[in-house]
């Protein structure tokens, strides 16, 4: 038996109000349940996508690292590092958000701008160019993965929140409203019986 809402008056008005509130709570409950179900569906779609993106990142990075090793073999590790830190390529991240079932998820894209000659061409090897472009491809894959992963994270948070709301409505709010409605109804019926009895008594007195 759940608790009766405190401060309820046993009047017909109150009964009507309670009934309306219960109807509203039930509608909210249904809507939230639907929201939760479709969020979970989206979540699993995103999980499938994440796996794919992850594999992409792994393979592109593997390629990039082997190109790096080759560049290091030809130019020497410290020279490669030197070129890397003086390279003029730059990358900018642009983040915007879109709404997915009321959850704001980010859309990220990397804007890479490579100048014509990012580093001295005279004493760099062609392997360095290959390696640079391979890392750029890997970075693109990484940014895509980051987008999907943060989508998944936010979806997970939203699912948690929605689940909590659904169960709060289901186990607390609705039973409480039901109990209060019953209480008010019983009290009203009781008063009706009392009135009926009182009228009978008075009739007996008069006659």
């Amino acid at each position, binding site marked *: 038996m759940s608790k009766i809402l405190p401060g309820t008056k046993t009047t017909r008005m109150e009964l009507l109000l309670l009934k309306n509130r219960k109807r509203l709570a039930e509608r909210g409950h249904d809507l939230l349940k639907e929201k939760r179900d479709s969020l979970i569906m989206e979540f699993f779609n995103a999980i499938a996508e*994440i796996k794919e993106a*992850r594999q992409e990142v792994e393979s592109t*990075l593997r390629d990039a690292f082997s190109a790096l090793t080759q560049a290091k073999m030809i130019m020497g590790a410290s020279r490669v*590092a030197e070129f890397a830190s003086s390279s003029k390529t*730059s990358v*900018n991240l642009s983040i915007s958000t879109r709404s997915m079932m009321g959850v704001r998820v980010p859309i990220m894209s990397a804007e890479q701008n490579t100048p014509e000659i990012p580093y001295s061409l005279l004493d760099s090897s062609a392997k360095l160019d290959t390696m640079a472009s391979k890392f750029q491809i890997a970075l693109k894959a990484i*940014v895509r993965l980051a987008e999907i992963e943060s989508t998944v*994270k936010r979806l997970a948070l939203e699912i948690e929140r929605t689940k909590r709301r659904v169960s709060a409505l289901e186990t607390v709010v609705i039973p409480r409203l039901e109990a209060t409605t019953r209480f008010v109804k019983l009290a009203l019926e009781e008063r009706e019986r009392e009135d009926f009895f009182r009228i009978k008594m008075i009739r007996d007195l008069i006659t």
Partner: protein
Amino acid sequence: MASDKIAVIGDRDTVTGFQMAGVRMCTVSRSQEVTRSTLIDYFRNPDVGLIIITESLAKEVEDTILEISEAPIPVILLVPDRTGTTGAYEKLLRELVRRAVGIDIKI
């Protein structure tokens, strides 16, 4: 938007590679303390939108990562380093799925 920079924390090879791709905020980390403090530095920096950290380094500071990945921005992403993937990322994802759906699901 302000947060438009990518930051990388990793070993020397990873950092070199990403520098070639144009990432300017790079840190070579050799110890756990450095990794942790750099991670927090990048996290507090409002310009940073994405932090890339190698899996092997991430394993040492797992608790910090779990703590700060609650925030929506910046996104923290674990990538495999030269030696290949270690599976640290699977663990993070599984935890998320467990919390969202309520049960452990093999993904």
